[in-house]
């Protein structure tokens, strides 16, 4: 097992290399970050040139990639533009944990900016994932055990609706209903914007209240997806011979379902959760935009729109790392649950 994990980790190095190269080429051409630099006025031409040299934007793309990867503190850069490199570089490169600086925020390290937002995203996504898992399992199992009952048919149809629902539509609908209409009808209504009411302050109660609608919107879609998946996994397992054996032993129905069936049905579900885990971080682009939630998805959009490559690159690289790590983690968990699997 240890050897397997080490091999997977080693394999992921070239993978990340290819990923970063693709992204670097793309992000190099998404527009000029120096035009506005996040301020109100256009940057002056002489500042632009100096900044471009200082940031290495005047270099050929391959050199820029090398700087991004391993830094430039081992060489001199030409900041004053006289063709003579005179200033020592200060960048350390991604391999040493330096994701570059955000031009938009005038020199703040990109990693710091991302790091600040990750907790907000997780605050939304971890509870959402828990809700999704619990409801998805519950609804899926129930619907599998009552196959073709009206509840099952309703769940199946509803799950198709949820599955096909664009997140913005369910988000807008839920805001309209629970926020706008409830307020209009004089009912207790839910806030639809931000993390807290600035007049009340950032209290736990406020944040919890602001979390409800976004979590509802995210969960609506994924509960549908999960329950569909759990249902078909359970149906598959319930028709297996070993379930009949368990029945022939006279075990209680609940034991058969919760131990014999679920243990087996959970195997494909582990894979599903494993594939989804990194999207805890990624899935929130649209949701965070609609609910004005200050998380990583919104950070990504804000900085992409204004061509701030370092932050965008940092976010996507971190996500790619998360994807790879969670794949390895999934394999490990899978092996724990399925004694037949041995990685050697």
């Amino acid at each position, binding site marked *: 097992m240890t050897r397997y994990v080490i091999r997977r980790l080693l394999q992921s190095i070239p*993978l990340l290399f290819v990923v970063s190269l693709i992204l670097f080429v793309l992000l190099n051409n998404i527009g000029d970050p120096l035009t506005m630099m996040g301020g109100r006025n256009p940057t002056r031409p002489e500042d632009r040139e100096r900044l471009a040299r200082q940031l290495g934007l005047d270099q050929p793309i391959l050199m820029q990639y090398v700087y991004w990867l391993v830094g430039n503190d081992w060489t001199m850069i030409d900041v004053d533009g006289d063709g003579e490199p005179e200033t020592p570089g200060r960048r350390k490169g991604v391999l040493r944990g330096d994701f570059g600086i955000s031009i938009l925020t005038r020199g703040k390290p990109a990693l710091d900016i991302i790091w600040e937002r990750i907790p907000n995203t997780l605050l939304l996504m971890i509870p959402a994932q828990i809700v999704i898992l619990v409801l998805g399992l519950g609804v899926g199992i129930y619907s599998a055990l009552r196959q073709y009952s009206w509840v099952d048919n309703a769940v199946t149809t509803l799950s*198709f609706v949820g599955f096909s629902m*664009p997140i913005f*539509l369910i988000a*807008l609908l839920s805001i309209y209903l629970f926020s*706008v209409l409830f307020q209009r009808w004089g009912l207790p209504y839910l806030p639809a914007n931000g993390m807290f009411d600035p007049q009340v302050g950032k209290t736990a109660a406020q944040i919890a209240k602001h979390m409800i609608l976004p979590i509802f919107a995210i969960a609506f879609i994924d509960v549908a997806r999960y329950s569909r998946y759990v249902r078909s996994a359970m149906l598959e397992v319930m028709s297996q011979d070993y379930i009949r054996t368990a029945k022939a032993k006279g075990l209680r129905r609940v034991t058969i379902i919760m131990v014999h069936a679920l243990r087996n049905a959970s195997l494909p579900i582990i894979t599903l959760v494993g594939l989804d885990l990194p999207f805890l971080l990624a899935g929130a*682009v649209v949701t965070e*935009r609609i609910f004005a939630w200050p998380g990583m998805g919104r950070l990504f959009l804000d900085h992409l729109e204004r061509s701030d490559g370092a932050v965008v690159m940092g976010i*996507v690289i971190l996500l790619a790392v998360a994807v790879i790590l969670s794949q390895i983690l999934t394999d490990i968990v899978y092996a724990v649950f399925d004694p037949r699997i041995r990685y050697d």
Partner: protein
Amino acid sequence: MTTIEPPARIGLAGGDVEAPPLSPGQMAWRRFRRHKLAMANAVLLILLFVYSFGGAFVYSEAYANYNDTTKRLQPPSWEHPFGTDTIGRDILARTIYGGQISLLIGITAVLVQLVIGILIGALAGYYGGLLDSLLMRFTEAVLTIPGLFLLLIMAKYFTGKVPDITLLGRTYSGSVVVIVLIIGLTSWPRLARIVRAEFLALKENDFITAARATGTPNSQIIFRHILPNTVAPIVVTATLSVAGAIISEAYISFLGLGVQPPTATWGNMITGSTNYIEGAPWLWFFPGLLILLTVLSINFVGDGLRDALDPRSRPE
């Protein structure tokens, strides 16, 4: 064995209960028809196409793009059944023309996906070896980047790089082409993996060995002998991908990086509607509902197709 007789197909009462054998196509159609929800949704899907393309005979494109700022943000009425948008355009007419673009994007993006996915999957699966591992590492790399993020970066990358095009007397924003391209360029990896797996399994068959032994060129083996046998999973994946492509377009356009006005799509009609959740719900409700119905009906049809064509496989 002394007696060799054709197995009698008899029921208990001795009557013949088996119909004459059906062709694979007939059997698939039978299975599809049995899937009642899929049938109903196939009809719904046809209606949505009729709405988008037939509607052009009722409203002209000029009308869909005509703006009258004195009539902005009007709620649904007899004159404007779906209301008017922020600059006074008729939303019903725009959902018709937007539907055309959204559906076209969905279909053409999948065509791009099919070309890339089949090519990469077939080459990797058929030739194996170094080519296979190179192509599969690349596929894996693309899959490692969360889809929507990659789409948005590519949308930003291509913004303004493709000029507007005129086709059949109508002008399309270059951004339509961009969206088709980037959705096609990001959605092929799953298809490539499916095609590769099919090729790996099929190339070991005797009929392929026979074809090789008779000196059939590789390109012919790939496209004439193996590919036709992989049609079922490809058709199912492609159908479901159309739904995915329409949703992707809607997300990118909703976030403002997609198709640019005046060309309407269901997705870009919703751009900025977060500011009008309360004031003008009709602004986002009708295009959103049309996206939902389209994606829903395609998903149902895809599910029916899977049951009909590829009964072994199950979702996900």
